[in-house]
């Protein structure tokens, strides 16, 4: 850690992050609206994740910001200046791509130095700077390796160093981890986050993986159909989603049908307060959205619910109990779960008297998931 701080100091790379604002972005392909009035304000030095299913417009938003896509309407400002008309070449944004994007004909050092070369920096100077950045990502020993000689994780770290070498005003990450193995992904996730915090660089990260978004970002913007559904801190997004789309996309939820009575609902025989999900309380039939940690189970031979499924997650085990034909996911400490057999009768209760609700879903609640 101390090493990293030092490396930062010697590169002199501590650019004050830029303030970025996306205002009413609209982008149409044929009849498809990839962006449909998308707005987002990003504070200097903030790490914002754009999260959503494929086709939600998150990648288009990033590419508009990078200057690779034109806008039909809306504008992009960086530190208050409208950059919508500026080409990608002159936007000073470092980008790390989903697929391996290192130049195959250059070794790691020359890849990192490429941006400096384009800026006509002197050879010795740019070689020194590139060397420092390789050190920053912990790959000094790979300087003369070519991309095909490196692992996927190493390539993405070099790509990160290359993007940072030009001291960009904004760092753009387009699912940089999605091509990597689970183990490498987890490691690189931490490394990117720590580098970003150390350099205090404004960063936009695109991902479809909610775990990635929640664990890395200062704020997460959940997108759907070309618009921002909710933009909030990971904790707020998780505990206070404002739409049922967000509630279901972020974290794992069980849907349990409930009937509203005077602003409260009865769930597993207990009266619970409603924590609103969709803005305002929906009319008609409701579902309670329950996180696996919101529910508890205890063995009880006289109870009707029974266990249909168990999967080991490490410290906890996820148990699926069937309650009146509805599958409810529960996280149980693994040592406790060891005593719960498949088919065992269990009593199900809520941990908090405060539940999220959303409009009743039309999908079959007895689906295997």
């Amino acid at each position, binding site marked *: 850690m101390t090493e990293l701080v030092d490396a930062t100091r010697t590169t002199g790379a501590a650019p004050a992050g830029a303030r970025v604002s996306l205002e009413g972005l609209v982008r149409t392909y044929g009849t498809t609206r990839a962006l449909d009035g998308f707005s987002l304000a990003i504070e200097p030095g903030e790490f914002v994740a754009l999260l959503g299913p494929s086709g939600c417009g998150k990648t288009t938003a990033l590419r508009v910001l*990078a*200057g*690779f896509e034109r806008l039909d309407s809306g504008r992009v400002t960086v530190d208050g200046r409208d950059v919508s008309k500026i*080409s*990608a*070449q*002159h*936007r*000073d*944004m*470092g*980008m790390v*791509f989903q*697929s*391996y*994007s*290192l*130049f*195959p*004909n250059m*070794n790691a050092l020359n890849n990192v130095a*490429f*941006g400096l070369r*384009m*800026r006509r920096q002197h050879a010795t100077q740019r070689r020194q700077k590139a060397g420092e950045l390789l050190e920053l990502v912990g790959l000094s020993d790979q*300087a*003369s*390796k*070519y991309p095909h*000689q490196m692992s996927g994780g190493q390539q993405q770290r070099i*790509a990160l160093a*290359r*993007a940072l070498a*030009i001291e960009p005003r904004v760092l*753009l990450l387009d699912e940089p981890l999605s091509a990597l193995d689970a183990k490498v992904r987890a490691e690189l996730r931490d490394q990117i986050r720590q580098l970003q915090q150390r350099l205090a660089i404004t960063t936009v990260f695109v991902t479809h993986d909610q775990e990635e978004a929640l664990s890395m970002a200062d704020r997460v913007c959940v997108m759907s159909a070309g618009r921002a559904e909710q933009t909030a801190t990971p904790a707020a997004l998780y505990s206070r989603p404002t739409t049922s789309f967000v509630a279901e996309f972020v974290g794992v939820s069980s849907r349990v049908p409930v009937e509203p009575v005077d602003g409260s609902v009865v769930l597993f025989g207990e009266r619970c307060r409603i924590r609103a999900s969709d803005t305002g309380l929906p009319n008609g039939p409701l579902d309670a959205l329950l996180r696996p940690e919101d529910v508890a189970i205890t063995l009880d031979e006289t109870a009707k619910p029974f266990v249909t499924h168990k999967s080991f997650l490490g410290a906890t085990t996820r148990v699926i109990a069937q309650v009146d034909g509805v599958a409810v996911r529960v996280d149980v400490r693994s040592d406790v779960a060891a005593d719960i057999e498949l088919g065992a009768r269990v009593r199900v209760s809520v941990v908090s008297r405060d539940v999220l609700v959303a409009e009743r879903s039309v999908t079959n609640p007895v689906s295997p998931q």
Partner: protein
Amino acid sequence: MASLIPDIVEDALVAVPEVPGRRRRPRLRLWRAVVLFLAGAYFLIPIYAGLRFSFENDAGHLSLYAVKAIPSEPGFSAAFWLSMRLAVVTLALTLVLMVPTSVYVHLKLPRLRRLLDFVTILPIVIPPIVLILGVLRAAPLWLRASPYLLSLVYVILSMPFVYRSLDAGLSAIDLKTLVEASRSLGGNWLNTLWRVVVPNLRSALLSATVLTLALVLGEFTMASLDLWTTLPVWIYQFQQVDAHVSTAVSMVSLIGTWLLITLIVSLDRSQSRRTRRRTNNS
């Protein structure tokens, strides 16, 4: 076509196939031997026959007279240099036309790739007779009087090979991402083309060059219909004068083309070997 001769022979004779298995190996070796033998026979027997004929005199005895006679035969040197000039002009025209076009189409007009695919196959589909008759009738007089009209025809003829090589090369790299990476790092279009795209198309360009040269140095129909005595036309005509000398020239021309190709390929290989060595040192 990437890195040709030595590697291939090495691979075919020595290397372990990707899915070996002790018990399987003899069977594989046998198959490989059969394929190699058939391919060899198919190509080497005609060449051997040609070579033997080159080193015979009219009486059927072994002799070097045909090979020795080549440089002094009437018209040979003119035909040789005409073919060389045509080769260089055709190659230059082809690369300058096709490299930027195929990069641009790949990047910006991917829909047009199918059209180009089709357009560049036309020279094969159109009978050469039709092509040359049409070109001759359509060309302006000053061009019809110049041998470089043939270069224009050869550019068309080489298009299927050159476009396919470039297209394969461009498809093999992630062109869009590489170009965008270069752009976002501050590269302009020229820098991007020269420093990022072209170096990663080396094999494709090499393959295009070899094919174009081979085509120009071997083409007979167009040249003879356009009434220019290129090397292949000269060989054909001279066959009636002295078949042995004519065959000897065609053998020499074959070997010359091969040497040229080997030279280009080995330049490419030494380049990549240098790269490899530099890497291993680190």
